[in-house]
């Protein structure tokens, strides 16, 4: 009995009755602060591939070489909308939600560097890693065309019967080599640290 009274009281509250008859559901819109898929801003992409390296989802972002320069492209079926690429981009090419404003306000940034490792016992020296590496392709177009490189500026090269890593510091950590190695011989380690910018830098 007590509970029936409770329920009657509950359901004849003015607030509830008002809601029952006049409530409207929210329209199908996303709030402005929603981190949607990153969109391009006016800024020019330099092709540093930082966004590709920090992306945690496989195949979600690629920086493509278009006719008028570089341009990052998001693949919606892969992107998990974490917004890390937006935050990591040093040029502010991408924008999503209010990440750019917030990072500028908080003076936060990511500092990152990469390590490359090749397991010689697994490696077939097929050269897939060297040829697929976007940085290598940029530095030495001949490499992409013929599979060999005479340049000493590339990140890695088949030299002396094994994959030799010449310039680890040039690696942008995109993991293209790792994904295209059939034997999992090459591994890229991404070292990322979340930091605050110094006052002078900011």
């Amino acid at each position: 009995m007590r509970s029936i009274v409770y329920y009657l009281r509950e359901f004849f509250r003015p607030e509830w009755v008002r809601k029952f008859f006049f409530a409207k559901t929210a329209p199908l819109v996303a709030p402005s602060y929603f981190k949607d898929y990153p969109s391009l801003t006016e800024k020019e992409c330099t092709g540093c591939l930082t966004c590709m390296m920090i992306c945690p989802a496989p195949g979600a972002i690629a920086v493509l070489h278009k006719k008028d320069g570089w341009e990052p492209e998001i693949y919606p079926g892969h992107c998990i909308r974490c917004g890390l690429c937006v935050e990591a981009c040093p040029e502010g090419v991408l924008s999503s939600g209010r990440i750019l404003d917030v990072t500028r306000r908080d003076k936060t940034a990511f500092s990152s560097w990469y390590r490359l490792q090749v397991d010689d016992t697994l490696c077939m020296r097929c050269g897939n890693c060297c040829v697929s590496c976007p940085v290598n392709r940029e530095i030495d177009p001949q490499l992409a065309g013929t599979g060999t490189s005479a340049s000493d500026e590339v990140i890695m090269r088949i030299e002396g019967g094994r994959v030799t890593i010449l310039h680890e510091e040039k690696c942008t950590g995109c993991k293209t080599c790792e994904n295209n190695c059939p034997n999992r011989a090459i591994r890229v380690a991404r070292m990322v640290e979340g930091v605050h910018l110094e006052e002078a830098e900011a």
Partner: protein
Amino acid sequence: MYLLNTRETVLDNLERLTGSRINTAYMIPGGVRFDLLPEDAAAMLADLVKVEGEMRRHTGMFETGPLIALRSKGIGVMDREEAIRAHTVGPTARASGVVCDLRLRHPTYRELGFTQVTRTEGDNFARIMVRFQEVFQSIDLIRKCIDSLPDGPIRGGGLCKAGEVSYGGEAPRGELTYSIKTDEYGRVVDIAIRTPSIMNIEACAHSMIRDVTSIADVTSTFISSDPCIACNER
């Protein structure tokens, strides 16, 4: 359904802080990604009041409504010994009077004055009520956190190094343990996850359901142990 509406309010706050509802991508080694603005904090506090009010009403419905309270009282009883023997964790264990909450040992929670919610009945009603009471407790904890949140940098930097760590945290469903082994560059080599639902579902199957006489009560008993199917289907 109305509880889900309350959940929307919570998710709104989460979204305002991190920019997305579920996959927040908020924490990074050594800190978090975005700072909590004063106006966001104020909005959050205002919403907390709303959530608390709604939850009080819902709790009242559960406690006094005959449809729920009477149907769940004394059903699916699991006493303290059984709960301990079945290694139950989280609210399922706490409803049977087991002292089992990793937050008791966590320094931050200690500072916030955390106390464990415990009930001794061990039936479906107790398990539901423990969860309700934990919501109020969490609301209080969040308020205390927002009050005592210090200013300053939100990122301390920090890297994953080689090593092996096993850490248990208190997830909504109970104790969640991760054992991770990383190599020298912080890449995960080996990972083992122990989810709370594994023990709770076992306990549900072996001790709670044993005394249930009506088939309709099986469902409610099963749900009251709060099983996460995705956690078990790994």
